[in-house]
């Protein structure tokens, strides 16, 4: 995979992540019991929460690229992610995502603790997965060609956490961390290295344009001014409406296999 691809991968994943999950949030809604506050049951809340989660994950990912990130900021973002995931676990959204995306994958495999609290020893072990990961990405791209957006969203749900080699603030062993980036991240990092990114904004502008588009929409929703909920939902949902459930199922088996390789070995 060339540097170009490395650069474009992240935004692509994020967009897909949101699109796919949004549909699931809708599905899940009928199942959600009255335990939730009224506001939480409306789809836009789930959507906002998901977008916030995505935004936070990207921020954490970028923190991780810096040798010495702003610790306070990283900790606050990580706590936000934990909080979101805790809530999603409670209302069942998180479980739903997991069950749908990885079949029988157990919850604790992908929840916050796993994402956020990876020891550096785990990182080293993961270094071995570089090639497998590369293959995974290629599959991923061909999926894209087939316009199978459901598969992509499922894959990215798994992949985003994997990318997030957290432990972002373990500054006392930066070299160790650096050596353990996954392949795509490495490529992004190499590209950026020459430019010596000083601010996170720089990183954002280099890596991640579509991410900002997403945020603009999210912000619009939050302030309830520029865009009504329905409008924004439609923007989010239109691409996924074309994908059917059967498509999703047929590809899940393959995915399970890939996921198992990534998770188990």
């Amino acid at each position, binding site marked *: 995979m060339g540097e170009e691809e490395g650069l474009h991968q992240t935004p692509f994943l994020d967009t897909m992540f949101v699109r796919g999950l949004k549909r699931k949030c809708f599905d899940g809604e009928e199942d959600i019991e009255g335990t939730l506050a009224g506001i939480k049951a409306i789809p836009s809340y789930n959507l*906002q929460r998901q977008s916030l989660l995505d935004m936070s994950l990207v921020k954490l990912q970028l923190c991780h690229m810096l040798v*010495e990130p702003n610790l306070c900021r990283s900790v606050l973002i990580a706590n936000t992610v934990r909080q979101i995931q805790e809530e999603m676990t409670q209302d069942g959204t998180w479980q739903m995502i997991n069950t749908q995306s990885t079949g029988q994958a157990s919850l604790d495999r992908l929840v916050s603790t796993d994402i956020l*609290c990876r020891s550096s020893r785990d990182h080293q072990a993961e270094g071995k997965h570089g090639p497998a990961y590369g293959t995974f990405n290629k599959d991923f791209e061909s999926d894209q060609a087939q316009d199978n957006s459901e598969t992509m969203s499922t894959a990215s749900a798994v992949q985003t956490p994997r990318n997030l080699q957290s432990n972002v603030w373990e500054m006392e062993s930066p070299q160790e961390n650096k050596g353990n980036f996954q392949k795509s991240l490495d490529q992004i990092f190499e590209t950026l290295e020459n430019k010596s990114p000083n601010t996170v904004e720089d990183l954002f502008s280099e890596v991640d344009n579509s991410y900002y588009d997403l945020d603009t929409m999210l912000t619009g929703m939050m302030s309830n001014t520029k865009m009504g909920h329905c409008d924004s939902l439609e923007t989010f949902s239109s691409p996924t409406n074309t994908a059917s459930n059967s498509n999703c199922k047929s590809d899940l088996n393959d995915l399970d296999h890939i996921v198992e390789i990534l998770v188990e070995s």
Partner: protein
Amino acid sequence: MEEDAETRKISSSFLRDHSYATEADIISTVEFNHTGELLATGDKGGRVVIFQREQESKNQPHRRGEYNVYSTFQSHEPEFDYLKSLEIEEKINKIRWLPQQNAAYFLLSTNDKTVKLWKVSERDKRPEGYNLKDEDGRLRDPSMITVLRVPVLRPMDLMVEATPRRVFANAHTYHINSISVNSDYETYMSADDLRINLWNFEITNQSFNIVDIKPANMEELTEVITAAEFHPHHCNTFVYSSSKGTIRLCDMRTAALCDRHAKFFEEPEDPSNRSFFSEIISSISDVKFSHSGRYIMTRDYLTVKVWDLNMENRPIETYQVHDYLRSKLCSLYENDCIFDKFECVWNGSDSVIMTGSYNNFFRMFDRNTKRDVTLEASRENSKPRAILKPRKVCVGGKRRKDEISVDSLDFSKKILHTAWHPSENIIAVAATNNLYIFQDKVN
């Protein structure tokens, strides 16, 4: 507000010319010395600029002690940590003055990793007529020395010298966010994200670790130290604030390592205002003891709070700095503004507090009258000796003349650092690369 903040006048402003201002010119800290005669600023380029208040003159009564540049020096240089393969920025994070004990002035300046003690002294005489050296300092040929001379001091143009007297390095793994001189004047502390160290001014090669919140397993880290300060009178007492919105007061007499706090200040969360951003906006960006030592002031993202040392369960006063941003938190999170570290200061009598906001606005709150005012520090609408007009941010509804709507606030213009003269109503406000000094109206 006494004398009314709106009648404040600008006595001097605009330190540098901004047509060529760069990132390095951005002011990162402002601090008056204990008499208020000097004002020091530090910037991202590692420079320290000291201003001195000029003597009041009878012929020009309208000039009431303006501040002029007194000394400029490069305090910190960019460094490279070869072990970690990382650059250490030269940016000055904090400056603290030591109380003056002789003709020279001393100050501490710190970047992310290293604290330095600087001596700033004046020289207006130089010795002349050495026996062994000639006027240029070269050794003279002993055979040429035939008479014994008595060296004399001759007046010369005033020169201000800044010399580094101590360098306190290699004690911080994380970024230093605070330094504070103890009231014993012999020690000071430096705080980073996870630890606080206690130093003696005379000893540079060792420090005592007095607080360490680094978990054995960094994966469990959920809280960091954001600021720390010594009590102004009790040399055994200090406070530190955390990213979870709490303040701990520690007594160094109880144990060498103050892991257990003596007091714990925390306000219960308001359930009606709960959101995913609750923790982020409650993170404390600055903590300051009042001059009296009775109160602590903390600044979080949206408010300033005043705590009584005798009441731990809630602040005695809470002031909204820019509550209209509450509905914008998502965008502010997206563009990272939500992580901006605003500082706060007391006036000399602890009756007024001041802190910064966006759009070059800064706020003052009178604790007695409960009046507050928003002022703007900007080149466009302030000329020397002009009167500052209070500004208003329009929240919903119709925007009146002179009001500015929340949506048109400029979030790149933020006032993070301010300082208040220790006894008079003179304030220094750092707005990006400009320093504004305002004072009460004359008469």
